[in-house]
């Protein structure tokens, strides 16, 4: 088994790489010019965070892999992101709702490495946390406006929430990797992550006049390399140029 911290870094790095990639698909196609620019900023932050986290993962691994090698030369079964992140971007309601659910989670989840004892990781997590606070604010304001806007926007926001909610269970699963990085002290794992997230999300969704679905959580597997059918296609596109020219410099 690879070192737990390496595995942990792949997880939170891949979350951001994949979600950043999905959001970047909006560039040039946003609902209004100002929002097009805002979405690109969120993508840039996420991909930047991914680059730092994956570079650190590569350093810890010590086999000469950097962020680019990890991003472009792993297959889908080697990716460790949440399945929610890889789902196609959908409409604006889907993209914003996913960003909201993810950012609300990341806002709490990043406290783990920030409070941990790994200096490099602490630094990256602190930077990511700062950026994430803006993402959360932006997405929250949009969830409220969609939920409490027009009939159509309410319907779309509720549909997005209904679709996304069952994927959120994966965010709170703990396994050996989490236990090991906690034991090392690199990450302080909070026992009350889920209830705190749920309280924050419930409050905001209430203000947006949206209803939390009662549907059960889905089966998962992203953390172990079991993905949806969407990730393979996404990576095929992302990796095509790099893989067509092995050994090339860009």
């Amino acid at each position, binding site marked *: 088994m690879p070192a737990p911290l390496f595995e942990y870094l792949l997880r939170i790095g891949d979350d951001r790489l994949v979600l950043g990639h999905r959001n970047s698909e909006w560039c040039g196609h946003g609902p209004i010019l100002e929002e097009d620019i805002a979405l690109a*900023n969120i993508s840039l932050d996420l991909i930047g965070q991914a680059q730092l986290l994956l570079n650190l993962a590569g350093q810890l691994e010590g086999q000469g892999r950097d962020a680019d090698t990890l991003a472009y030369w792993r297959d889908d079964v080697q990716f460790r992101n949440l399945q929610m992140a890889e789902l196609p971007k959908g409409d604006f309601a889907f993209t914003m709702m996913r960003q909201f659910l993810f950012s609300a989670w990341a806002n709490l989840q990043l406290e783990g490495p920030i409070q941990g004892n790994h200096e490099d990781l602490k630094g990256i997590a602190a930077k990511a946390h700062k950026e994430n606070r803006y993402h959360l604010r932006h997405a929250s304001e949009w969830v409220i406006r969609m939920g409490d806007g027009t009939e159509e926007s309410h319907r779309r926001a509720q549909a997005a929430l209904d679709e996304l909610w069952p994927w959120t269970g994966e965010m709170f699963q703990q396994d050996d990797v989490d236990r090991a990085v906690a034991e090392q002290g690199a990450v302080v794992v909070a026992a009350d992550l889920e209830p705190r997230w749920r309280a924050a999300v419930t409050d905001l969704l209430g203000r947006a006049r949206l209803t939390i679905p009662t549907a059960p959580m889905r089966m998962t597997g992203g953390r172990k390399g079991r993905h949806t059918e969407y990730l393979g296609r996404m990576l095929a596109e992302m990796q095509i140029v790099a893989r067509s020219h092995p050994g090339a410099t860009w």
Partner: protein
Amino acid sequence: MATTDTSASEWPLWEVFTQPPGGKPHEHAGSVHAPDAEIALQNARDVYTRRGEAVSIWVVPSVLISASAPGDAGPWFDPGNDKPYRHPQFYKTPRGVKVF
């Protein structure tokens, strides 16, 4: 903005003022379209501070800005031109005093 036909709407226009670091005053950066103040602030942040140019932002609905008329320019601003005693260069310092 009443809820008239918003189908083609690009939202109302807001003027954006950003404050550069170092205690400088806010200056006009440009404008953004936004439905309300919170989104106007966020849009201004995303559009006008992409390179970290600001420490603070003001936004104000463009329609609320009152401006002097071009025709007023003469009567309003020319009188300031013939009052050289308002400028420090008007006053001589004795020879030898370099730092004042």
